[in-house]
């Protein structure tokens, strides 16, 4: 692919991702975080799923130590897939020592997807860097815009922002429901979390659902064959 083609793909992906950065910013402020806290999440955590999880638990459970702790652990566990992306990107980028620090930050769904869709190593590297940087810039600008919007509109429920937060999770799950096993885990996790919510400290039911997934993964219940 020509340089301009990789670049335009990257900018397109960056813009599309940036759009839902607006919803992150607005939802984060409606969850009770201020504009600075919201912005720091997008700058440093820079991983949509983990960021939505963090503010989702704060929105549902407040800012007590247990809720914040559960938010930290959930965000951390949701970041695990980025580790697998990094494994795929390492041999393409061939970085040594401290040179790994920046590409690690930019290793996310989008940069890995665009990079691995290219056919030669030069384009793969361009795809990674252009997309990673484009998403970083647009995601952060959009977060700021969303945070100010969220600040300005008053009661979030009037505008359906609580429903928007739930819909955001639905949108993040949707592409991952590929077969019976993931569908079963999704349904079971949702039911387990809702049933346990009245009786466990806020945020903890999400972690119990995570344990269910590890059981399914370890014993490969309802499974597809190992490759």
């Amino acid at each position, binding site marked *: 692919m020509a340089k301009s083609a990789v670049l335009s793909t990257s900018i397109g992906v960056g813009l*599309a991702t940036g*759009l*839902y950065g*607006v*919803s992150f910013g607005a939802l984060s402020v409606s969850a009770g975080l201020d504009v600075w*806290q919201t912005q*720091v999440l997008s700058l440093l955590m820079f991983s949509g*799923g*983990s960021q939505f999880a*963090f503010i*989702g638990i*704060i*929105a*549902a459970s407040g*800012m007590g*130590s247990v809720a*914040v*702790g559960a938010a*930290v652990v959930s*965000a*951390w*566990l*949701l*970041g*695990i*897939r*980025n*580790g697998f992306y990094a*494994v795929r990107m*390492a041999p393409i980028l061939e970085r040594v020592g401290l040179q790994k620090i920046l590409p*690690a*930050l930019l290793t996310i769904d989008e940069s890995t997807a665009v990079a691995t869709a290219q056919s030669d190593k030069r384009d793969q590297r361009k795809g990674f860097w252009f997309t990673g940087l484009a998403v970083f810039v647009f995601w952060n600008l959009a977060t700021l815009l969303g945070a100010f919007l969220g600040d300005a509109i008053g009661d979030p429920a009037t*505008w*359906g922002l609580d*429903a*928007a937060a*739930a*819909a955001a*999770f*639905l*949108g*993040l*799950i949707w592409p*991952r429901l590929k077969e019976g*096993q*993931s569908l079963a*885990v*999704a349904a079971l*996790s*949702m039911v387990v*979390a*809702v049933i346990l*919510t*009245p009786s466990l400290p806020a945020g903890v039911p999400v972690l119990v*659902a*995570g344990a*269910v997934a*590890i059981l*399914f*993964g370890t014993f490969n219940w309802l499974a597809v064959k190992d490759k």
Partner: protein
Amino acid sequence: MILDIWTGILLASIAVYSWKLIGFLVPSSVLNRPVVSRSAALLTVALLSALLGIQGFTADSQFVLDARMPALAVGAVLLWMRAPFIVMVAAAAATAAIIRLIVG
């Protein structure tokens, strides 16, 4: 131990970043075992689904069915029609907002 929101934000950011760095540092044979990659993929699905359940069907730690349920149904239809993420989220918000405006 008191875990305030700023400490939580910084801890969580470091924790999420740590996976990315680990992926660049460990030999690929460790993370590429089927049981590890399968569990990681299912873990992502489970955490997001649990959050969907709590965000969509609870309020103040109780099970609640309200305007969020039809909003999610609209979102699901739009996802099935391959609508972009932002369109789907906005439509879900609008659905809940309109229902609340009418029902009060």
